[in-house]
């Protein structure tokens, strides 16, 4: 299961599993955000290529409008996936959070 919602400080908080079955709902949510947005990934348990695709599409749209998506709190077991896909180079990843 996946939950995605606006946090108190303007961040978007995502939690659960961002897999192929949940990608469409995540995309619908992220299609409505603008500007520079931090995606709080501390509660994200899992991401697959379908999830990466959602992030990629959102990042492309925001960059074209001088905004961007920042990833915060990404847990170590998911970092491999960003690294091996080269996505660590496409996003500003705040690992300290």
């Amino acid at each position, binding site marked *: 299961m996946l939950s995605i919602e606006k946090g108190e400080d303007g961040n978007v908080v995502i939690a659960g599993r961002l*897999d192929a079955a949940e990608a469409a709902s995540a995309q619908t949510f992220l299609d409505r955000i603008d500007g520079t947005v931090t995606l709080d990934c501390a509660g994200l348990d899992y991401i697959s*290529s379908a999830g990466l695709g959602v992030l*990629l599409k959102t990042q*492309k749209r925001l960059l074209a409008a001088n905004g961007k998506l920042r990833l915060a709190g990404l847990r170590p077991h998911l970092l491999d996936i960003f*690294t091996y896909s*080269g996505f660590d180079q496409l996003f500003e990843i705040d690992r300290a959070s």
Partner: protein
Amino acid sequence: MTSAVQHRPLSASDLQAILDVTKALAEPFDLTTMLGEVVAAAKQVLQAERGSVWLYDEPNGELVLEVATGIKPVRVPWQSGLVGACARSRRIINVPDCYADTRFDPTVDKASGYRTHCMLTLPLVDHKNVLVGVMQVLNKIGGVFDADDEALATALAAQCAVALQRVRMTSALIEGEKMRQALEMAREVQMSTLPGTMPTVAGYDVGATFLPADLTGGDTYDVAMLDQGLLVVLGDATGHGIAPALSVTQMQAMLRMAFRLGADLETAYLQLNNRLADTLAADRFITAFIGLLDPRSHQLKFHSGGQGPILRYRAASGDFERFRPTSFPLGAMQIRALRDGVSVTMQPGDILVLVSDGIYEQENADGEPFGETRVTSIVAAHRDESATALLARIVAAVRGFAAGAPQADDMTIVLLKRDAPGLAQTFERRIDAIGAMVAFTDDAFERLAIDTRLRTRVDLAVEELFTNMVKYGRGSRAAVTLGLQAVDGGVEVTLIDRDVEPFDITRAPDVDIGKPIEEREPGGLGLHLVKRLADGVDYDYVPQTRESRTTLRFTVAGLDEGRRGSQGRGSHAVD
């Protein structure tokens, strides 16, 4: 002297007499009272000295004199004498002088000292035209029976026949109900000896089920962890009614007691047989499988008295080993020297299948039995499922096969399954199945004690390969099998896709991850990741079954390598 049934008009006083009698006949519920009422009514209406009712005992072909004033019950063949002639012809017989009629049997008179002068013999036929018996009225007070008496007797006989039949059927129902209640109690005793829960045995999955037949049956099973090992029993006592239920209950108690007293399998079996031979009725016996498993050495030793076939699914070869009974049924006769039992080693994935003949012999509407092959095909096809799931499948298959045909016998199944090194399950070819695959993986990680740090990689590999199968294997409607197996330092994941064109992941192009974002596309990324995250990938295609098999290996060592943050690994198996 023999008259056809007459339809003479009855007088008002005659009708009143019959109505009074009918009222009296409506009350009794027991046969003795009813017979008394019938005879009293006949005597009163026909002004006779005595009366008697012979009931027709159809199964024995006899007429039975259940009651007659002052005379003991007598049985005669239904063709014999005046009563026989009346029963056969179903016509009233009026004999004005008995001792002048050759059909008259004076035996009863001789025995009782009573002298019969004249006699009216009339058939008792109920409204469904069933012969209930024959009524005789003797010695008309002050004369002989005339045509008016015959008419009156005919009307009376119809009332008596219906009343008697009602009482007979009611008492048959009551007898049946008493029998049913007794049977129910015996069945309760039988059921109460079945183990409530299956014991937990490390490395094994045990399941058992018992489906009682409605009427009769004498199945039992027992599975219990004893000092001697895991006891596995399946028994079936012969016969119908209450006895088999009680016999197996006795057997189970004796057996548990023998083991509690420290007996080994041979002693327990021998003593059980000989005690049952002492106590069971001569025509009764019990077929039983009695086995002991040592869960550490995986040695299963058993004796089977007339219980079989005993089946063992062999995981390594994918076939069934079939054992015959080792001896005659328990209790059939004394055993002096017991022949050796059978000893088998349960290998990983092997399944011991014990099924009572109620399953094998369950017939469908066409009278075809369920048979052994249906059992073995279900076990073979679903060997990776839990014992409980397998039991449910067999039960559902038998029920479906019977399609409402009555269950003639108890059905009992005991399955003893040695854990396979891996687990597998099939999933529908749709994206929604990912949730179920994750749940299965969750369970498999726990059951196979796989390092949970490998979880994300395994989930990702499974999802990427599966979504790929769903997207590109649209021509196939076959389910996809996911298997997990614990290997040294990690886990091996196998995905089997059927009825598809080959798709070799090891030949899938890598994604250039160095491209600027504008040029990046999500396509191909999933398989690229799988190859990067797995420590080994193998691909195999079977053209005959159009089966695509991808095997991936993940190890904790590989995980640590990833943790160092290297972007590519020189030693990677699929690079």
